[in-house]
């Protein structure tokens, strides 16, 4: 089975190569090739999964050495894969959700003339992400990491004719560079410390390294994770990344890209376990992002941006859990998988709504859509119930466990982190109810297109194109079927994982697991979560369900206005980083002009001046040369005589 791992990565990579190099002649079949190869990858993953399940727990790790990538003296970097339970979980999520998103895109991008290129990029995205999670060493992981960055850049900027999309793609890429720098330095430090990139020897000797070094590595890995997973302070790219086509948002937010940071932290768990400071930093970043994303999600009127805030917040939960150490790793990954289902479902639902509403994204111009698109309504609704943690659905099982684990950290930290996680659950309920209610309930806030048979009652002088007005309709089957599958996953995945603690037992050999000593019982946590959940839903219902929603957004409080501007993240970045950078470069330019150039130009000028003086000597008169000769001779004679006298 080992050699199948290479094929797992190879299939989507082949798809990307064929679709991108194939040119226009593949335009008619390109999207199906993309779907097929993603599905092949999923089938291989499923086969490997079945094989893995059949083995005893201790022998489930498969390795596959393809070739030596950079064999130079003591520096060895191999293209080698390692498939253990953690990688397997990711492989199934990436290829499974990825394939569904591919199929959905066939319908969503049906009218885009560059659909073939789009599928090529999607396949590239899958391949890079699979490389990332299957690598058995940090250098290959980094290659996948950068591949994900490239693919996200290409996909976010897919409609690059729109300046906003091109800018958003650049922003995502540049912000990610900051994180990538952290990861690359961490890898260099790891290599100088352990002399290898491979996971197994690094983790085996991790505890022998000094505490300070492990902390540095942990913090640098966290920086990398912050970039890819859109955690504070590198979160600013995620909202703008909504400029990409909606399936891309689903892919980035559910299956690939943002989960990479959580994977990195979990995979490097041994290092973090040995560096409590770095671990605490992961927790703090997770908790801050959790609140940050939730607050932003409450204020956005753009349905995709509200969901983006939600993703940020949910990834914050995962980071928080991953920072808790062995008590949290399993639940971080479990929430990641359930989140993959319901967030993909939510985004595909949002795409379906936009599809029917002429690409309108402002929720204030939706309303009452449940009768027009019943399948989207039901699947989105199930995703909504799952994300807020409605009892019995996926989010309930995974998120409650994270809240519980946060309390179980113990001490004051445990109470603070647990409290933040609990509060976050309430805010999640609030903003998701808001999205749900504004989109599907309430009265219509859009002007419907006239029926084709009735003559449009147009006031003279005002031109109304019937095509510009929305006439909401259910999306084609190719789009609704993936949504239904994901909705089923959102409903049952969490419960399935929790039967008999199946997921904990599955991942435990890789990540380790300990229960911790929670100061509160599971029952108390569940009760508290349900209370904040009910409060959040009730608040949102009172605000958006009972009262009519104004079509133009009210001015709102100071916090609302700040949250609409993403809590001033861009202003902060502009003032501190852009302005700061400008000042820095300006002063550097000044220093360069005055000091460096001054020294160089000064030397040149003084040499020039001296030469001009010396040139006077060369006056062209033979007599003056003769005088200098005579003078020279006289000096020589005098010197000789003097030496002799002495």
């Amino acid at each position, binding site marked *: 089975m080992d050699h199948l791992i290479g094929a797992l990565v190879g299939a989507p990579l082949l798809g990307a190569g064929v679709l991108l190099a194939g040119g226009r002649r593949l335009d008619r079949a390109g999207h199906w090739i993309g779907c097929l190869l993603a599905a092949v990858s999923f089938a291989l993953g499923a086969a490997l999964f079945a094989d893995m399940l059949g083995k005893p727990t201790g022998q489930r790790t498969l390795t596959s050495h393809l070739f030596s990538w950079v064999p130079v003296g003591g520096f060895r970097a191999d293209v080698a894969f390692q498939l253990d339970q953690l990688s397997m979980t990711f492989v199934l999520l990436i290829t499974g959700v990825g394939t569904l998103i591919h199929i959905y895109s066939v319908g969503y991008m049906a009218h885009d003339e560059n659909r073939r290129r789009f599928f090529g990029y999607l396949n590239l995205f899958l391949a890079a992400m699979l490389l990332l999670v299957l690598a058995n060493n940090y250098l290959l992981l980094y290659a996948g990491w950068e591949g994900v960055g490239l693919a996200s850049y290409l996909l976010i900027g897919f409609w690059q004719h729109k300046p906003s999309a091109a800018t958003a793609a650049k922003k995502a890429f540049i912000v990610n560079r900051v994180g990538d720098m952290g990861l690359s330095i961490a890898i260099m430090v790891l290599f100088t410390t352990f002399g290898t990139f491979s996971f197994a020897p690094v983790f085996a000797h991790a505890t022998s390294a000094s505490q300070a070094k492990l902390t540095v590595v942990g913090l640098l890995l966290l920086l990398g994770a912050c970039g890819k997973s859109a955690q504070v302070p590198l979160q600013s790219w995620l909202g703008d990344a909504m400029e990409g086509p909606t399936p891309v948002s689903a892919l980035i937010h559910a299956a690939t890209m943002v989960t990479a940071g959580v994977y990195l932290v979990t995979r490097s768990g041994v290092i973090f376990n040995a560096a409590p400071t770095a671990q605490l930093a992961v927790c703090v970043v997770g908790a801050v992002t959790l609140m940050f994303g939730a607050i932003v999600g409450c204020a956005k009127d753009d349905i995709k941006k509200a969901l983006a805030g939600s993703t940020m917040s949910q990834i914050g939960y995962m980071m928080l859990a991953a920072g808790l150490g062995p008590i949290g790793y399993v639940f971080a990954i479990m929430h990641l998988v359930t989140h993959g289902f319901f967030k993909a479902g939510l985004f595909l639902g949002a795409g379906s709504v936009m599809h029917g509403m002429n690409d309108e994204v402002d929720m204030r111009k939706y309303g009452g859509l449940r009768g027009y698109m019943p399948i989207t309504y039901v699947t989105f609704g199930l995703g909504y119930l799952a994300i807020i943690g409605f009892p019995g659905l996926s989010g309930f099982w995974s998120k409650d466990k994270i809240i519980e684990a946060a309390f179980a950290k113990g001490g004051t930290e445990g109470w603070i982190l647990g409290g933040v996680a609990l509060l976050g659950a309430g805010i999640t309920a609030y903003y998701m109810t808001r999205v749900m209610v504004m989109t599907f309930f309430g009265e219509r806030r859009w002007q419907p297109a006239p029926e084709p048979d009735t003559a449009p009652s147009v006031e003279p002088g005002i031109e109304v194109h019937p095509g510009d007005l929305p006439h909401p309709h259910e999306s084609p089957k190719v789009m609704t079927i993936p949504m239904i599958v994901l909705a089923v996953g959102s409903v049952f995945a969490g419960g399935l994982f929790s039967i008999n603690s199946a997921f904990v037992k599955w991942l435990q050999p890789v990540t380790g697991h300990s229960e911790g000593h929670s100061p509160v019982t599971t029952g108390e946590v569940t009760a508290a979560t349900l209370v904040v959940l009910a409060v959040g839903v009730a608040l949102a219902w009172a605000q958006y369900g009972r009262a009519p929603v104004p079509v133009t957004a009210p001015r709102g409080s100071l916090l609302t206005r700040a949250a609409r501007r993403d809590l001033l993240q861009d202003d902060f970045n502009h003032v501190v980083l852009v302005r700061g950078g400008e000042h820095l470069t300006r002063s550097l330019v000044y220093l360069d002009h005055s000091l460096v150039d001054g020294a160089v130009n000064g030397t040149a000028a003084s040499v020039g001046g001296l030469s001009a003086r010396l040139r006077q000597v060369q006056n062209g008169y033979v*007599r003056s040369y003769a005088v200098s000769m005579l003078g020279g001779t006289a000096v020589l004679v005098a010197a000789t005589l003097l030496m002799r006298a002495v």
Partner: protein
Amino acid sequence: MNPINYLYLSALLFTIGGAGVLFRRNAIIVFMCVELMLNACNLAFVTFARLHGNLDGQIFAFFTMVVAAAEVVVGLAIIVTFFRSRHSASVDDASLMKL
């Protein structure tokens, strides 16, 4: 007469010749002054030969005369060519190499 006086005369002649080379512009006169300096040297050689009582100095004087004769041939030829091209015998006009 004390032979040392010849040395004084030689130094005087050499100085006159040197001053002529440095201060005169006419190439012919500069050339003559060079000859004067050479002959001042010859006088010194001969005087030293007499003082030391051997013939080394006199032999050197002959060498000098031969070299001077050769130099006159080359030097005068240069001056004549120069005069032909420049219509001047002034050494200050030979400044083509100056910037």
